[in-house]
């Protein structure tokens, strides 16, 4: 009888499998993790590289970086969890973002901690689509939308 191996993956292992590193890693911690959805946080340090230019003498986190943060926590971390049985030292997860529709409500300033909450809409034929929102430390909505990507292990 063939035994199917169900592997467990800790939140730290999910983060260590991310294909990003500083200065483009926007995940500090995952706080709630299941196959249906994921919640994680990131604190924007005041020396992040993009504050030097966005904007001149008025540092505000760019919308594309907020989108990237939502994608890294909400889509890529969840994708890694869903594909955990296929990931190994030689087989790494690869991600291609394929679409996103995001509305923005509030700015995020240096030193702010944000929480990303993602709910899986579907994961089929390697396409993962999620409803994702970001809230600040006052529980106010920063941005929300849907993000999709193709997630494969190669």
């Amino acid at each position, binding site marked *: 009888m063939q035994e199917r191996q169900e592997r467990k993956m800790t939140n730290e292992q999910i983060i260590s499998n991310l294909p990003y590193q500083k200065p483009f890693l926007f995940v500090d911690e995952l706080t709630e993790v299941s196959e249906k959805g994921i919640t994680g946080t990131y604190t924007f340090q005041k020396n992040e590289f993009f504050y030097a230019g966005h904007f001149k003498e008025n540092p505000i986190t760019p919308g594309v970086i907020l989108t990237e943060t939502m994608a890294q926590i909400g889509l890529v971390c969840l994708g890694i969890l869903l594909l955990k049985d296929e990931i190994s030292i030689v087989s790494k997860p690869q991600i291609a973002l*394929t*679409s996103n529709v995001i509305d923005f409500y509030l700015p995020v300033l240096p030193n702010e901690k944000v929480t990303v909450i993602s709910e899986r809409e*579907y994961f*089929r*034929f390697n*396409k993962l689509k999620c409803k994702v929102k970001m809230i600040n430390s006052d529980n106010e909505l920063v941005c929300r939308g849907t993000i999709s*990507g*193709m997630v494969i292990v190669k």
Partner: protein
Amino acid sequence: MTKEEIISKLTTLVKPYVQNEEGFKNMNEDTDFINDLEINSANLVDIILDVEDEFKVEIDNDSMEKMLSVKATVLVIQEKMNA
């Protein structure tokens, strides 16, 4: 459902994802979704999900991998509808 009816419904489903309008104008049985219509892999998944809703069928991974052309897709839909 006849083959023509399936192709007609499929044409409507495919339209929003087409990059190559010329290929879409000439869409026929031999049309390949990726080469002729330049549909990307994520949108190909959307088409498969739309096919499931439209034709009330369930597409598995093996069938999905075959559904790269109009002809192959019609065959899969017919097979699933008659199952």
